[in-house]
């Protein structure tokens, strides 16, 4: 295993690495060309801490990305969807202020894997899943594409808001290059991820000497959070299901008032009015279930995937620590090659420190983002519920009004006669 800290090349070329080698590509200074940010880990941490206390000024946002316009592309071999990615920016690193490119899901996968490789202990926002588990008939039905597009949009925006990742060279290439295929090399990138995963799992099974307390706490939190968010998602899905079944019954129930009205005289009018009320409330119910699906469910789903990302990040961090510890032990037991080994150990130690600091910083950032996102989604859902009940209230109150008007008419009639 090469012990040298490999100078990182961010021009888009893949590093030539053997498959056996440690394929973790990382850096103490994860910056692209011309990045004004300081290089040392500690100052990075300070940077992050600052961001936790002061919410990011919206006016400071200088990178705007949208993902839209899904189009079906049919070739001889396959069918896939192309999404349009529009970028508007004032950043000096970009040659132009506007870009329009077309990307497919695979391209997004590529981008994310490059980001993770470059910054193994930063929290890279997850992508929507490759497949949907629960019995999808068509791979590309409208709902699926709609959901995926929204998630891809979220993904790019999350990256663009990240103080480090948004300056990543691969990210820039993704947003600007007309053709991405020349930049993507199918080789080590994917394999490296696979290799890393296997090794990371192996290392955690072997166990670390001792995980620093803050990371132990982090791990515990991540496990708990993962459970909770999965449960909240399940409950939400169940609510939607129950609401849809309720709606089905309402659709049978309402018209019965109308049918009854046909055999009635004086009662026909109020009966028909009730039928109409039930129908309108049904529509509101439908809208409500739809809103849950559009707003709360995708957010919860995103954070379920985030939890998995966090677990992977923690594994990688553990792995980096394990490597250092292993080398350190070797240093202690070996008599020869002390100098060379020492150098290696120092390198791994630096790498470990850097990774830990990177994660710590990003952790606060992620938590703040999670809080904002989930809070916003819950608030929105609560608002929608209030809105739903207010609309139904109005429906029934107008019915009451109509009936009271009726009865006062009748009374007037009676008085006159």
């Amino acid at each position, binding site marked *: 295993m090469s012990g040298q800290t490999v100078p990182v090349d961010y021009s888009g070329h893949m590093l030539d690495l053997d498959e056996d080698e440690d394929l973790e590509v990382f850096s103490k200074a994860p910056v692209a060309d011309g990045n004004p940010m300081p290089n040392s880990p500690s100052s990075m941490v300070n940077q992050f801490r600052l961001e936790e206390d002061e919410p990011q000024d919206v006016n400071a946002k200088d990178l705007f990305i949208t993902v839209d316009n899904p189009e079906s592309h049919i070739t001889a071999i396959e069918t896939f969807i192309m999404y349009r990615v529009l970028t508007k920016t004032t950043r000096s690193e970009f040659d132009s202020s506007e870009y329009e490119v077309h990307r497919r899901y695979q391209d997004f996968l590529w981008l994310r894997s490059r980001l993770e490789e470059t910054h193994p202990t930063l929290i890279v926002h997850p992508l929507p899943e490759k497949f949907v588990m629960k019995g999808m008939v068509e791979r590309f039905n409208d709902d699926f594409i709609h959901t995926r597009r929204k998630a891809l949009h979220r993904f790019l925006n999350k990256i663009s808001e990240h103080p480090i990742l948004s300056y990543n060279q691969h990210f820039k290439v993704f947003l600007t290059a007309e053709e991405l295929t020349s930049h993507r090399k199918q080789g080590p990138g994917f394999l490296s991820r696979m290799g890393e995963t296997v090794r990371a799992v192996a290392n955690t099974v072997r166990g670390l000497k001792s995980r620093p307390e803050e990371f132990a706490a982090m791990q515990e939190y991540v496990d708990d959070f993962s459970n909770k968010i999965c449960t909240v998602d399940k409950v939400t899905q169940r609510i939607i299901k129950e609401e849809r079944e309720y709606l089905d019954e309402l659709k049978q129930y309402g018209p019965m008032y109308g049918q009854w009205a046909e055999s009635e005289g004086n009662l026909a009018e109020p009966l028909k009015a009730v039928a109409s009320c039930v129908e309108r409330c049904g529509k509101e119910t439908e809208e409500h279930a739809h809103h849950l699906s559009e707003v709360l469910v995708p957010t919860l789903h995103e954070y379920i995937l985030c939890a998995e990302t966090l677990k992977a990040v923690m594994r990688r961090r553990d792995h980096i620590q394990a490597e250092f510890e292993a080398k350190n032990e070797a240093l202690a037991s070996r008599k020869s090659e002390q100098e060379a080994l020492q150098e290696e150990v120092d390198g791994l130690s630096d790498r470990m420190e850097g990774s830990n600091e990177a994660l710590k910083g990003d952790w606060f950032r992620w938590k703040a983002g999670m809080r904002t996102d989930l809070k916003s989604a819950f608030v929105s859902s609560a608002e929608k519920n209030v809105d739903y009940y207010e609309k139904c209230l109005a429906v*029934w109150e107008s019915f009451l009004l109509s009936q009271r008007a009726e009865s006062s008419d009748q009374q007037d009639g009676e008085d006159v006669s």
Partner: protein
Amino acid sequence: MAEDGRDELLGTDGDSEPLVAGRSLRNKGVEQGCSLLRRMEICVAEAEKRSGRNTVNMQEIFTVYLIETRSMEAVSEGHNSAPDSLWRRYSEFELLRSYLIVTYPHVVVAPLPEKRAEFVWHKLSADNMDPDFVERRRVGLENFLVRVASHSVLSNDKILYHFLTEEHGWREVVYETGFQAKAESRLRALSATFRVRNTDKRFMDMKHYSDELQSHTSQLLRARARVADRLYGVFKVHGNYGRVFSEWSAIEKEMGDGLQSAGHHMDAYAASIDDILEEEEHYADQLKEYLSYAEALRAVCRKHELTQFELEMASQDLISKKQQREELATGIVRTFSFKGMTNKLFGQEAPEQREARLKLLEELIAEGEDTVKEKTVECQEHVERAWVDMQRFEEQKDKDLREALINYAVMQISMCKKGIQVWSNAKECFIKM
């Protein structure tokens, strides 16, 4: 549903809002003729469990209901005297109603609350001993008594008065009226098929309407129960939010408080459906009353068919007897008869025999004419009285059901207001997250 006078005058039970139509129904009942309700305030105050031996000498537990009566004078003079009271069980109410429908076949008699819980949505108990069911039955029995006591015809019935005032020996008095024999023949007639030539179109239309009413109310009740079931599910799942938010809040620092209190509101939301649906049962009861009323209406129409049929039969019989007389008198046989045949085969009978037979026939014809007169009167009276009562019923039904629909809307509004409150609170908690 007829409003119990008790709420207004005794003012004890504060939880039921006086319903507009109920009040006017009571007033209307009081205005019509010298109804019992005008003279006396009636309510079914309580229910209690008793045990005793039934007709096959087996131990059973049953519920009895306390009927309280008080003369209107005492009430208006502000005397706080204790009301007269007695206990009755459901089967006695059934007996009373049986008696009334047999004795007054032209009246659309108010129904009793259901014997067994039907159209139940699954969480609601179908148990007759369930306290909520007993309570709703108490209300239904009171409603029955008030309706019957405010009816211009029924309110004058002695048996009814006796039912309300004398606890012991009432059953015997009812049986002594001999109504049971009539009850049996009525039941047979109701289910019999017979061809009637001339029926009053209004009654046939009304009978058709009663079928429609029955069909629509029962369909509606079934659908409503299914809707209630589903709504219950939606609310209860939110309880799971309560639990998970609480657990989640334990691992969060800044978000903890907001999540925790939001969770409490979710629990409250989940719990609120029980009262909401219990309240809705009153609406269902109002529909059930008219489901049963449909049957009573149908019975009145059937009675018309029956009386008309009997009249037609009696007329037919009279005609054929008169024809027989004519044949005997003139010797001309127009119709086939065994006598005619045997006469032909064995020779004419003796003049004395003929005389005897003629005389008998005359008597039968006289009887037959009386019968026809009777039946004509019966038929006509039934048509007149029943038509009046059916008009009354129709007016009452329109008013009551409209009131029921308004109540339903009021319940929906109340549910919406609760929902707005809970979710506004939850929103505040989420904002604090």
